[in-house]
């Protein structure tokens, strides 16, 4: 396989927070706690997890918008240090969740899109206007939107502007941090399709972050599932869908509301997501896990490859409902094709 576009090794981002009382103890919140990932050119890696699992912090740390506590980030084959962030800024961009707070409220769309061009001197000054208008067209907006202020546009239009800003520097990687989560459902699909079209056109790689498993599945080639600062499972989308190895992934998939008749009983998780400042010992999922054993309380499971291309951090990734996963996996596939036309 060719060299990945972005490679993250054992990335940590810790925050110090003081407890509520005066002179309270300083505790360390391990928002990102040893994440290793890679993304290839033109690929979408989905990252799914619930609030507080550290997915947004990961997004920001990868782009050096927050400085990593430790770990290695390699982009286009070169290891990056923080002072080289400018190099990264031309190759990797971000689209934020909230189309209202992610655009400067008093700047015209034209200036918002021109700024990256001017900063990196990407086009001669007299062509900036043309480039801005063509960027607007690329994201499906009319070129006369350039004279508008952000508040004059709807949420969907604003998010298109956010995407155009990210595209201005012609990046190879775009991090989409909950990019459609605050949009209305009827507009969300437009933006997802736009992101797909842009990917095909510019051979973009996406790190697509969302709490919505349905959206992540639609967008991604591979999916990473994050829980409390760590990746607990990583697999190609269709395989994850057919046979999730980690019990948390299964619970997550089961919790998504569906318009179809549910086949099995819903896996009901007990309890609350743990406090990231005070994670449980051993596997951080064990207090809520329906199949927890004594070992889960003591030993943190490593993220390891159980089957070709299938990694999971669970002591019992292969011991689920009795049948061997390989069989079940093929069963799952057959069942899937059986449902088809």
């Amino acid at each position, binding site marked *: 396989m060719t060299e990945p576009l972005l490679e993250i090794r054992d990335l940590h981002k810790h925050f110090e927070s003081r407890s509520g009382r005066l002179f309270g103890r300083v505790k360390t919140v391990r928002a990102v706690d040893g994440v290793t990932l890679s993304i290839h050119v033109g690929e979408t890696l989905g990252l799914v997890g619930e609030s507080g699992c550290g997915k947004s912090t990961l997004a920001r740390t990868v782009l050096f918008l927050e400085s990593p506590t430790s770990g290695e980030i390699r982009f286009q084959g070169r290891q990056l240090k923080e002072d080289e962030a400018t190099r990264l800024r031309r190759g990797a961009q971000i689209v934020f969740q909230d189309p209202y707070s992610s655009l400067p*409220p008093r700047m015209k769309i034209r200036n918002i899109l021109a700024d990256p061009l001017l900063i990196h001197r990407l086009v001669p000054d007299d062509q900036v206007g043309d480039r801005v208008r063509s960027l607007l067209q690329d994201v499906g907006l009319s070129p006369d939107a350039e004279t508008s202020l952000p508040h004059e546009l*709807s949420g969907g239009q604003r998010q298109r502007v956010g995407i155009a800003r990210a595209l201005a520097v012609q990046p190879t990687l775009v991090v989409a941090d909950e990019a459609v989560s605050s949009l209305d*459902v009827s507009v969300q699909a437009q933006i997802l399709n736009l992101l797909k079209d842009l990917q095909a056109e510019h051979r973009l790689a996406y790190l697509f972050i969302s709490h919505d*498993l349905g959206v992540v599945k639609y967008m991604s080639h591979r999916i990473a599932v994050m829980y409390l600062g760590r990746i607990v499972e990583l697999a190609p989308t269709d395989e994850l869908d057919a046979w999730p190895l980690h019990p948390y992934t299964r619970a997550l998939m089961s919790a998504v509301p569906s318009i179809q008749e549910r086949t099995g009983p819903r896996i009901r998780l007990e309890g609350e997501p743990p406090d990231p400042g005070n994670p449980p010992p051993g596997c951080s999922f064990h207090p809520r896990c329906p199949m927890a054993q004594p070992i889960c309380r003591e030993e943190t499971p490593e993220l390891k490859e159980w089957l070709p291309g299938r990694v999971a951090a669970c002591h019992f990734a292969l011991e689920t409902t009795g049948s061997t996963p390989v069989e079940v996996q093929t069963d799952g596939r057959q069942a899937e094709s059986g449902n088809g036309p």
Partner: protein
Amino acid sequence: MSDALPTVERIAPREGSAGARALRGIARRPVAAAGILGVIVILGASIFAPLLAPYDPAMQDLSRSLLPPIWDGGSADHILGTDPLGRDVASRLLFGARNSLVISVSAMLLGSLLGLTTGMFAGFYGGRLDSLLMRVGDIQLAFPFILLAIAILGTLADRNAIDLILVLGIPGWIVYARVVRSRVLAEKEKEYVMAAKAVGATSLRRLRRYVLPSVWQVVPVIALLDVGFLIMMESTLSFLGLGLQPPASSWGLMLAEGRKNMMISPWLSVLPGLAIMATVLSINLVADGLADVIDPRLRKGSFRRRLLRTQASAEGAGGDRPSLLAVRDLSVEFPLSDRVVQVVRDVSFEIRRGETLGIVGESGSGKSVTALSIIQLLDSPGRVTAGQILFDGRDLARIPDHEMAALRGRRIGMIFQNPASSLNPVLSIGYQMAEAMRRLKRVPVKRIESECRDALRSVGIGDPDRVLGQYPFQLSGGMNQRVMIAMAMTAQPDLLIADEPTTALDVTTQAQILEQLHEITTEQDTSLILITHDIALVAEHADTIVVMYAGQVCESGPASRVVSDPRHPYTRALLESVPRAELEAGVRLKAIPGELPDPAALPVGCPFAPRCPSVMDVCTEVNPPPFRVGSRHSAACHLWAPEMRKEVVS
């Protein structure tokens, strides 16, 4: 995704520059307009002083000393009289205005620039620079300004205007710096500043091009108030003999000189006093108006329920089936300053005892407004303009306040999207629950604690004692929502309205909460209205679905029918546009083209017509009423009009 209010800002037409808008905004407030008039008069007087003044302000004429003003027996030569040296008071007042304004405005500019810059840097870069600047500011604020000014000015033998400007202006920085700094602290955390960093903007560029345009607006208001204060200070210093030196004219000097002749000619001190007062007052009035315009949140809002007049036929709608709640042709409007927005139009639905009704819609669909109308808690100026809300035979839009208040909480409960903001942050969960128990259910004191525990257990909280002792901020969103449900259910209401109860929660928590909600409402035979933007959610949890779009019901029917056999193109599009787990790989989502309609400018005809794949000519002309498409199933679409169906058949 709150749609309690129509999104007004996005359609606000741009009218001229920000300054012009601010001026127009101020001018609409009569008190502020009076202030503007005052400021204009004073500005005009000081600018045109050389033209307006009948005499040179320094020209002495001892033969005409202490002449009275014209209304006190003086002559038209000296309208406001003369001072002991025979100088014309009117001329001295005009030139005094000039000096006062030049000095205080310059001092204000100096102070505000200094404060804006230091505040921006301190807030943006933080760290040691911030601590240093703010400590210097603290020390300065602890030291009386007037003492400092006297100390400095007293040592200067020859004072001129520049000295005064420096002494008055520089100490003002801290007032600006503090406010600007706190604004920068809030602003720099926003995503657009992060985005600027991501596109490679240096910190100086982020500060100048991104943060500055969002924070400078706080300066003009402080600056105006500051000018008023500086005019007073300048007069005070002149009065004490530390300001401009004679023969220059200054209001403070005139006041000091007038004091000596207080008994003979009181007007000499009253007139400059009045001038100072009028100027400061005008400036403050303008500043207040400006603050209102810049921050519209300061405007007063009020909640007032409006009753509909009793209709003759109000009780005539008994119907054949006993429904707990029947909403008929409900219309709600929000009058804005220049137009009226129809947020809900002719909405009808029914809910039977023990049934769960799901209302699905996107922002601006009117789903939350409908819910708030049922419980009669519409935010002002929203009002129900037509229709009936029949709850157990009584029309909630027409019963008096005290009857409505008796229903709220006891027979109709409501839970909201953000549980943490629905709970009181400074009271423990136990206290708040006990309060609800006492008020709604009249539980005897002895049993309150055990009842609270039972209530929490009934919503799946395993260790109620721990939760009862905690405060809302110590609990997760899911826990708080459980507490809200437990509280809403204490009175065993007949109807519970849940407005996006799980939207702010994680999926795994959402599944738990909805199951709990289902269990507890089934157990107590409570009807549930579940409002959400997620059609899959109501498909799983509701018996009946009402789909709303642009303030109207476009489809309603049994949940299984609506989901498996949607009849309205919008429902169908909604079902197809959400990426589902079931979606096969490689299949492209069918996105609905276009944008949600602006509630203030709805199209003629069917509101979905501009985005509809099956639009016909009639759709852009006539807004379709609901047509029956099956048992208890209706769709407001011309495709289902009886004459259309005949055509299809033939």
